[in-house]
C-alpha cells in the first residue's frame, strides 16, 4: 500500500506540473465565464443556461484532461523507460498500476473541483444557489472520470497514445449511447438484439453518471441510485485495473 501511495503522489506531482494541463484549465475557466454571456442572450433563462452549459463545460474539459493525460501516462513509462527505476526496486506491477490510477484520479479530481468552484461562483454571481443535486452531479462526473482513467490506463498498457485516445473516445461515445442503442433495436431481429445486449454488458453505461438534466430542474437523485452508480464505477474500475495489471506483468520491458 505504501508504494501505491508513493507512486500516486509522484504521479499527481508530475501531472499537475504539466504545462498543458494549465492550458486546458485556462480554456475551461474562460468557457465558464463565457456562459454568463450566453445566458444573457437567452431571454430570461440565464441561470438555466449557465447551469446547463457550465456543467457540460466541466464535463468536457474534465474529459479532455482525463483522456489526454491518461492515454500517455503508462505509454510514457514504457517508452521513456522510467519504469526501470521503479520495477528494479521492491515494487510490484499492481503497485504501479494502482499508484498511477490514484495519482491521475487525484489530479483530475483537483481540476474538476477547481472548475466547479469557478462554476459555482458564476452561478452565485447570477443569483443562483448551491443545490445538493449540483454537488451530486459533480461527484458522478468525478466517478465517470475515474472510470475513464482506469480505461485509458488499461488501453495504454496495450496501445500507443493515439490509439488509446481513439479507443477511449469510442468507448465514451458508445457508453453514452447504450440506452438509445437498446431501445433502437427492440424491433430488430433477435440476433441483432443479442449482439447489442453483449455490447450493453461489455461497455460501461456512462449515462448512469449523467444527471445534468436533473440539475436544471432541481430534481434530487435518490441515495440508493446514487450509491448504485458509484458502486458500478468502482466495480468497473477494479476489473479494468486487474486486467491492466495482468497485461502489464506479461509485457516485456
Amino acid at each position, binding site marked *: 500500500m505504501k*508504494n501505491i501511495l*508513493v*507512486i500516486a503522489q509522484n504521479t499527481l*506531482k508530475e501531472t499537475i506540473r504539466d504545462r498543458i494541463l494549465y492550458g486546458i484549465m485556462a480554456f475551461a475557466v474562460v468557457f465558464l465565464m463565457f456562459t454568463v454571456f450566453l445566458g444573457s442572450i437567452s431571454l430570461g433563462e440565464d441561470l438555466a443556461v449557465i447551469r446547463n452549459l457550465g456543467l457540460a463545460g466541466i464535463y468536457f474539459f474534465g474529459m479532455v484532461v482525463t483522456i489526454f493525460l491518461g492515454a500517455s501516462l503508462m505509454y510514457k513509462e514504457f517508452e521513456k523507460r522510467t*519504469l*526501470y527505476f521503479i*520495477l528494479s526496486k*521492491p515494487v510490484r506491477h499492481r503497485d504501479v498500476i494502482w499508484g498511477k490510477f490514484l495519482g491521475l484520479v487525484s489530479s483530475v479530481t483537483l481540476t474538476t473541483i477547481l472548475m466547479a468552484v469557478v462554476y459555482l461562483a458564476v452561478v452565485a454571481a447570477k443569483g443562483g444557489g448551491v443545490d445538493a443535486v449540483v454537488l451530486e452531479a459533480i461527484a458522478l462526473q468525478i466517478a465517470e472520470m475515474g472510470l475513464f482513467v482506469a480505461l485509458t490506463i488499461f488501453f495504454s498498457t496495450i496501445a500507443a497514445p493515439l490509439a488509446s485516445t481513439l479507443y477511449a473516445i469510442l468507448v465514451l461515445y458508445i457508453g453514452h449511447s447504450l440506452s438509445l442503442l437498446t431501445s433502437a433495436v427492440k424491433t430488430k431481429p433477435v440476433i441483432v438484439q443479442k449482439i447489442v445486449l453483449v455490447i450493453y454488458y461489455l461497455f460501461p453505461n456512462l449515462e448512469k453518471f449523467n444527471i445534468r438534466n436533473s440539475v436544471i430542474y432541481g430534481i434530487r437523485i435518490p441515495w440508493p441510485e446514487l450509491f448504485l452508480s458509484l458502486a458500478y464505477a468502482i466495480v468497473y474500475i477494479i476489473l479494468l485495473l486487474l486486467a491492466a495489471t495482468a497485461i502489464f506483468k506479461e509485457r516485456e520491458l
Partner: protein
Amino acid sequence: MLEISRVEKAYEGRNVVDDLSLAIKKGTVFGFLGPNGAGKTTTIKMIVGLSRPDAGTIRLEGRTPQDPAMRAMIGFMPEAPYFYEYLTGLEFLKFCDSLFPEIDRKPDAVYTKTLAEVGILNAANRLIRTYSKGMRQRLGFAQAVIHDPDYIFLDEPLDGLDPIGRRELKEIIKTLKSRGKTIFFNSHILFDTEELCDEIGIIHQGRLLYSGPIGHFTKGKSLEERFVETVKAASPAKA
C-alpha cells in the same frame, strides 16, 4: 553471492543471451564487457527483475529477482536514464528512496550529501528537464546508491560523462568497493574497467567467452588488445 545458471533469453526467435552462467562473490567489482548488442543490457535487466529469462535461474543470496525482498537488496542504474521531467533532482531521489520498505524518513541532509557526492548539489532543486546528459547520469547513479544497497548494478555508468565526471564517479565506485559493496557494471570503456574491476566477464553474441580475474585474462597484454583478440576469434569469419 550472485549466481546465474544456464540463462537464456531470445527476442523474435534470436538468442540474445545463450546458456549464460556466472558466479560473483560478495564484495567483488565485476565488469561485464562486450561489443554493442552482445547481450549485456539484457543480462542486467534479467538480474534486476525487469525481464524474465526464458530458461535458467538467477539467484542473489538465494532469492530470485521476482522476489521483492531480493530487489530490496540492490541498486540499479539503467543505461542513458530517462526521468520524470517535472520533478526536481531532490524530489526524484526522495521518490526512489521511499520505494524501499522499512526505511525511516531521512533528513534532507542525507539526500543533499548524496547529490553533493555525485556533483549535482547545486541543481538539487531544479527541474530534471533542465539537466544536461552528464547531470542525468549522475542523478541515475545517486538513486542507485541512496538506500545503501549491498549489491549495485550499473548499466554503462560512465557513458555521457566528461573526464572530470568519470574520475569523480570512479572514485565513488572505489569508495563503495572499499566498503565491501558488490558492484556489477556493464561497460565498453575498457580503460576504466581495468582500473576498477577485480573480475570481468566477456560476452559476445549472447555467449560468455570468459569469466574470471582480470589478470588471468590479460596475461600481460592490455585489456583492449586481449578483448579485441577474444571477440574476433569468437566471431564467424567474414566472407
